[in-house]
């Protein structure tokens, strides 16, 4: 059992205060980041009209740049500040920036009122959000870890790890509630209810800032500050010195890249796959994901806790191995649950299908709805919308398919996705402690933030885009999108297995 070297380590009651303050703030940051994505369809109408090329261009930038470029950049900017000024004030700053920009998005008039200023301002604020998110996680994980006893670091930091999932939950919950209270029409209007989740951030962040202000600086940072051993140039020390750079590269290619793709596959690609490939009805697919997350998320704490006893590496690499081996069988099972060819259709008394045809000539379009029921309780709805030109000639045809699964298939699908969330818990639960222990206190914030945000933001964030691109290649099967997470996780598994070698580096407890 490693000895507790930091005698400043906080007592238990105070430690839970530290965890609460850090976790609530990080949760709110994730909430702020996700509401933009969850309300993308409405934001597109209000700020980025797709028939306007400039607005559409700014929309694409807001979507990709915030996650892929600005997040790692934020990790560098705030990581550096955190290693020079301290953890407390830096992650307080990221919280204020995130909350302020989210609140401001809720106040910007739509494109219809102020024209190009609307998408330009939203883009800037979205980039600030990405920057703040890049700086938050490393600060919160470091802050909690530096308060924790060495032999319980995995357990205590795992609470920070649950915040990404809980932030997603909170964002969906607030949006659904606001939508219900405001009503569909009032919700999507220019100054409608969709702004409330953004404006609410002001109060949430206010509470979190109030809690965090009461906290003290991390004991380990205070110690090196008192000793005068704070790094003068953390960026140069982290990435300019071979001894540290090689550990940053190891963290990225041996852990966070694989963790990122597994996280996004289990929580986001699974949803995309259900909606786009299996055609599962929108609300039902969201319930399935929500239930699977509810079942799987406590395992983050379990595996974080367990890693304190059996080590981080074994659990993380086992999670990757299981994902590599089981992704294709799991997704194959998922696909078969919604495959209508395997089901027996109920033919009505007239011996025909239930077909409802509605023609709307005033809008130059006609709708046709086909309803089918199957003996196992599955329902299928297909809506075809045929648009016509001014001369009443057929233009575009849009087909929407929605499969509503029977109760048995519904719960089986929940189980299949919960298994994926457990893989997420295995790789994600111990990773904060793993990263913290890889780097010395003087450059920890900078060194751990960058590989985390490249692994999560870039490798993970690209999962849905690359997976969908792979399935759209001519001759590809619906399961071919999984080669991306399987490939990255395999590279990471080999690297982690061979190169994460406790004999080749020292950590804080050594």
């Amino acid at each position, binding site marked *: 059992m490693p000895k507790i070297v930091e005698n400043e380590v906080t007592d238990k009651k105070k430690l839970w205060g530290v965890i609460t303050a850090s976790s609530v703030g990080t949760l709110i940051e994730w909430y702020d980041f996700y509401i933009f994505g969850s309300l993308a369809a409405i934001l597109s109408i209000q700020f980025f009209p797709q028939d306007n090329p400039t607005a559409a261009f700014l929309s694409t930038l807001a979507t990709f740049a915030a996650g892929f470029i600005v997040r790692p950049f934020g990790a560098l900017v705030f990581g550096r500040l955190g290693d020079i000024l301290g953890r407390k004030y830096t992650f307080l700053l990221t919280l204020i920036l995130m909350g302020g920009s989210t609140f401001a998005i809720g106040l910007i008039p739509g494109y219809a009122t102020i024209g190009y200023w609307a998408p330009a301002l939203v883009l800037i604020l979205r980039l600030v959000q990405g920057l703040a998110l890049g700086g938050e996680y490393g600060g919160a994980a470091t802050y909690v870890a530096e308060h924790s006893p060495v032999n319980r670091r995995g357990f205590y930091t795992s609470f920070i790890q649950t915040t990404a999932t809980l932030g997603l939950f909170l964002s969906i919950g607030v949006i659904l509630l606001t939508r219900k209270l405001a009503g569909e029409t009032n919700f999507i209007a220019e100054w409608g209810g969709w702004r409330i989740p953004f404006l609410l951030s002001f109060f949430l962040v206010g509470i979190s800032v109030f809690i965090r202000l009461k906290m003290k600086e991390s004991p380990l940072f205070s110690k090196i500050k008192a000793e005068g051993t704070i790094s003068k140039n953390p960026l140069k020390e982290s990435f300019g010195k071979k*001894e540290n750079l090689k550990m940053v590269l190891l963290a990225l*290619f041996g852990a966070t890249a694989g963790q990122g793709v597994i996280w996004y596959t289990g929580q986001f690609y699974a949803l995309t796959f259900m909606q786009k490939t299996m055609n599962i009805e929108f609300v039902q697919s969201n319930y399935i994901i929500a239930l699977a997350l509810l079942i799987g998320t406590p395992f983050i704490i379990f595996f974080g806790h367990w890693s304190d006893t059996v080590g981080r590496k074994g659990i993380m690499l086992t999670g990757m191995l299981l994902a590599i081996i089981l992704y294709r069988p799991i997704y194959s099972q998922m696909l078969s649950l919604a495959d209508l060819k395997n089901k027996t259709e109920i033919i009505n008394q007239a011996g025909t299908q239930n077909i409802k045809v509605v023609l709307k000539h005033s809008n130059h379009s006609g709708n046709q709805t086909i309803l089918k029921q199957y003996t196992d309780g599955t329902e299928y709805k297909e809506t075809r919308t045929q648009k016509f030109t001014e001369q009443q000639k057929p233009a575009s045809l849009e087909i929407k398919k929605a499969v509503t699964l029977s109760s048995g298939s519904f719960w089986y699908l929940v189980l299949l996705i919960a298994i994926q969330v457990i893989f997420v818990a295995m790789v994600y639960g111990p990773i904060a402690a793993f990263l913290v222990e890889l780097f010395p206190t003087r450059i920890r914030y900078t060194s751990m933030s960058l590989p985390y945000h490249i692994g999560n933001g870039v490798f993970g964030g690209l999962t849905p885009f690359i997976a969908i691109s792979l399935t759209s290649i001519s001759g590809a099967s619906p399961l071919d999108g999984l080669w991306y997470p399987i490939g990255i996780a395999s590279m990471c598994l*080999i690297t982690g297995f061979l190169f994460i070698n406790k004999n080749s580096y020292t950590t804080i407890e050594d």
Partner: protein
Amino acid sequence: MDLLRKIFGLIWMITAVFLAILLPYLALGKFRAETVTQEDYVFWIIIITIFIPIIIGFMLFGFYAFNGNYNNRQVSKTKTN
């Protein structure tokens, strides 16, 4: 184990060179297609901007591994507080 680390270091270096060529090639193929959209340009430019430094990092990682910087006998104590 050290020999395996060396072999994989070499494999990662070769993979990095391959990816450094493949990515711009794929992007150019997309840009030349008749169906190219503005979104494709933005997406691929961002992808190349962000992935080229990552690929260089991957190559460097392979180089360190090939040179035995992660081997047991090369233990070098990282300065801790």
